[in-house]
């Protein structure tokens, strides 16, 4: 019977072994599981960390400055699917940010441009109004106030213009070609401390019309910078220098200068290479260099601010290439051209027969009808009398002396080129009504003088009146001043009515004036 307990013992031992093996396996499995768990926990922590970094560091940095950090910092995730997805997220975010920024920039620029255009228009309107007021008011006190308003308005206009240019607008205001010194002084007109700006040199060069306004605006920004960054008691010196293939406007200030970082940033902005973001101009916005950069890139001049001025501040040099420069025509030559629309004597006969009013209609009022202003001198087709007969008129050509005088009074340039004022070619720039007016006046007063002379012979005690003291030049304002010494005095008077004003005293006949009682 001893076999039975033995068998039981064996069974038990085998069971124990199996249990033991199971236990060991269980332990093994558990240990593996826990290891995996630890690894997985680490991986989850790494991903959490990465996601946190994405949310708190990378995306804000992207949103701020559009600069991407490296995607995964943890080597655990290198090359993983998770990392690739993260990178895709970052990429999409970056492009979304860029799109949004571009749209915002565009919208901001469009809105600013529209607003600044409106302001610019107002400033220009106001400037016209101020100019008219300056013409109208003569008192120094009023003028003083007007000058101040004008100054403020110019600065206001410049600010609006600068922002508009930065937003892609054109500088506006078409100007004619202007000399370099006028351009610089135009820029001087637009800065606050214009009295501190001294233009030292003058050269005989001009800026072509399309570049005048942009150059004025750029120089104004440079002057404003120079004046703002220097002491109020220092001057800002402007020199104009012709260069090999252009000209330079050199602006020196005695201010604080720029440190290398500022100078580098300024250099980048001034070349116009760095695109300008109107939403990142800073507070207060600094757009001076950015505006200059935009203008320089668009119009082809260049500006540098990287040298020191001899006074310790910044020397800004604006270089204008030859393409933007021109020569102004010398003034004496320019004046006759400018006066070309005035009627010439030679042109008058061709023009006046075409004008039917005074010649063709045989109305009684015809002789007194004023001539059309285009007919400088009496046309050969003479007015007719009421009966339809041609009216005779006597007329002496103007003497050289008279023409010269007339030319001097109306156009001082003409006398600098005496050839144009000669009587032979008859091209003196003389407004015709003026000459005739003086002649008519002289005729009447000459008649009057002859009358008084005759009267004085009867009464020798009558003192001479105040005629003829000064008559170097006939004057359109005072007919009585031109009286006795006018060269037309001794000529028989041509018998046509003064134009432009209806003769109050009826038609003037040849030689004798019915309104002057002492003719003859």
């Amino acid at each position: 019977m001893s076999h039975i307990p033995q068998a039981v013992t064996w069974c038990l031992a085998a069971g124990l072994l199996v249990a033991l093996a199971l236990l060991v396996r269980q332990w093994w499995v558990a240990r593996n599981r826990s290891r995996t768990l630890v690894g997985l926990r680490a991986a989850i922590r790494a991903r959490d960390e990465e996601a946190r970094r994405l949310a708190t560091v990378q995306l804000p940095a992207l949103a701020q400055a559009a600069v991407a950090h490296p995607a995964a910092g943890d080597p655990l995730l290198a090359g993983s699917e998770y990392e690739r997805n993260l990178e895709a997220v970052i990429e999409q975010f970056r492009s979304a940010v860029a799109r949004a920024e571009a749209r915002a920039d565009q919208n901001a620029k469009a809105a600013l441009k529209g607003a600044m255009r409106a302001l610019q228009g107002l400033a220009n309107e106001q400037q016209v109004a101020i100019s008219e007021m300056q013409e109208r008011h003569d008192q120094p006190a009023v003028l003083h106030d007007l000058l101040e308003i004008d100054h403020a308005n110019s600065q206001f206009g410049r600010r609006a213009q600068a922002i508009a240019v930065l937003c892609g607008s054109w500088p506006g205001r078409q100007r004619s070609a202007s000399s370099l010194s006028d351009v610089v002084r135009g820029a001087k007109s637009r800065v606050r401390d214009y009295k501190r700006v001294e233009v030292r040199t003058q050269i005989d060069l001009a800026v072509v019309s399309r570049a005048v306004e942009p150059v004025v605006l750029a120089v104004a920004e440079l002057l404003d910078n120079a004046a703002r960054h220097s002491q109020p008691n220092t001057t800002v010196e402007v020199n104009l220098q012709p260069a090999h293939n252009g000209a330079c406007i050199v602006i020196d200030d005695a201010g604080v200068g720029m440190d290398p970082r500022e100078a580098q940033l300024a250099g980048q902005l001034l070349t116009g290479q760095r695109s300008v973001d109107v939403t990142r101009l800073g507070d207060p916005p600094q757009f001076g260099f950015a505006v200059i950069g935009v203008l320089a890139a668009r119009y082809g001049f260049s500006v540098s601010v990287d040298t020191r001025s001899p006074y310790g501040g910044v020397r800004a040099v604006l270089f204008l290439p030859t393409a933007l420069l021109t020569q102004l025509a010398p003034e004496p030559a320019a004046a006759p051209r400018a006066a070309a629309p005035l009627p010439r004597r030679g042109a008058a006969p061709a023009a006046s027969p075409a004008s039917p009013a005074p010649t063709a209609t045989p109305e009684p009022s015809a002789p007194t009808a004023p001539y059309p202003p285009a007919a400088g001198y009496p046309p050969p087709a003479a007015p007719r009398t009421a009966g339809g007969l041609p009216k005779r008129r006597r007329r002496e050509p103007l003497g050289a002396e008279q023409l010269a005088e007339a030319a001097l009074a109306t156009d001082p340039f003409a006398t600098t080129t005496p050839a144009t004022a000669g009587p032979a070619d008859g091209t003196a720039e003389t407004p015709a009504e003026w000459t005739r007016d003086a002649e008519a006046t002289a005729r009447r007063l000459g008649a009057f003088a002859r009358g008084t002379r005759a009267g004085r012979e009867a009464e020798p005690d009558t003192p001479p009146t105040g005629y003829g003291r000064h008559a170097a030049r006939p004057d359109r304002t005072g007919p009585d001043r031109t009286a006795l010494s006018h060269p037309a005095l001794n000529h028989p008077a041509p018998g046509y009515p003064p134009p432009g004003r209806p003769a109050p005293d009826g038609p003037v006949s040849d030689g004798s004036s019915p309104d002057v009682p002492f003719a003859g």
Partner: protein
Amino acid sequence: MSGRRDRGLVRPYVVTNGRSEPTRNTFDLVTLVTAASGRPNTGLTPEQRRMVELCAHGSLSLAEVAAHLRLPVSVVKVLLGDLVDSGHLLTRAAVPRAQLPESQLLQEVLDGLRARL
């Protein structure tokens, strides 16, 4: 300095350097301006130089000078005051309006003539 100066480019306060009071108070629209010969033009602003050039060939009234310069008359007065002070320009008051004989005198002359003829 161009003959066709662009209006509005150089503002009047730059032309006068901010001043509005002429140094003398004797100018009016018909004051006659003549250039004094023999003064160098150095040191003058473009507008002043142009005024001297304009008046170098005879007398011009202040109003005419202003029209040629395309500047307000009051601004030209300021410039003129400086130029008169520096001796570049001479001014002369306009010739006063001549005293016309009274109508009674004219009537007497007329009567005398009629009596004679």
